[in-house]
């Protein structure tokens, strides 16, 4: 398959993720949609790495994997903290920073 096909798939996944971030009110699903966007970026990086025949894109994709894991950890920690304080887990209602 041509590299362009992979890029088109990556574009579609990114856009689904971006629309999901805007549509869904649940912060946990928003984190999942962020994962989708990061994965789309990963797919594009690996596709370009295949195109050039170098390993650099794959190394960068692994770094993105690590960053995504960190983002998930902190995000889920925030959600657990919200739940502990009996605040609504809903981004439409969480509109102030005061704990």
């Amino acid at each position, binding site marked *: 398959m041509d590299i362009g096909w992979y890029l088109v798939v990556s574009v579609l996944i990114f856009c689904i993720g971006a629309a999901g971030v805007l549509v869904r009110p649940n912060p946990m699903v928003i984190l999942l949609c962020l994962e989708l966007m990061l994965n789309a970026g990963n797919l594009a990086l690996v596709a370009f790495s295949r195109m050039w025949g170098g390993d650099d894109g794959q190394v960068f994709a692994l770094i993105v994997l690590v960053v995504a894991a960190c983002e998930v950890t*902190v995000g889920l920690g925030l959600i657990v903290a919200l739940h502990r304080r009996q605040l609504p887990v809903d981004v439409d209602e969480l509109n102030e920073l005061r704990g």
Partner: protein
Amino acid sequence: MSAVIFFIAAIGALAGAFGVVMLRNPFYCVLALVGHLISLAALFLLLRAQFVAAAQVVVYAGAVMVLYLFVVAYIGEADEPLHRPGGSLRILSPLFGLAIAVELCIAVLGTALKGINTQGAPFSPTFGTPKQIGQAFLTQYLLPFELASLLLLVAAIGAVVLARRRRGLDDDGLDARLHARLRPAFTGTMAESGGIPSGHIPEGQEVTIELPESVGASSRSGERGARREGDW
């Protein structure tokens, strides 16, 4: 053959992505994302990125998704209502996504990159193997590698600090009590979650803070103990 596998994997990845956005129950969203990640790993294999594919399945579809499932189970969120009062943004945002999709497709397909219409660089037996990736990580990309490990450490500590247990402050009258009194000494610290009772003040230290009645409440938890959070 590779075209058939590509289309199966691509359809699986797109269906998984749609599932994440469309499904109402967060638990099923996570399961859809697991399917998406496995399809994506198949695409990585087609692109001869064996190590990235393996890391994707083990780290992402394994570890990170289990973390998600634990949090979903902990929160126990019910299904969202299908129609929320929320107005024009909910209608506009899919259109926004479609607009980005069209724009990016134009950008990708109209690009001047020559290699985009080829199958990629000529075959090399060492491309994408763990040996090659490890060598790149430990020689050319040593600094990003170390920074990534530092980032993981910071994220782990940050998550512990964010989600720690604040005993003595988790109550219904939290707001009122926060306004009425100062925060008691040594609540919400990591030492407290390690077993030192809240409100414990070391000897020889003079602290004059009014303590709320919930300090040391573990002995007389009574009616409140039934719904106190995180009391293991």
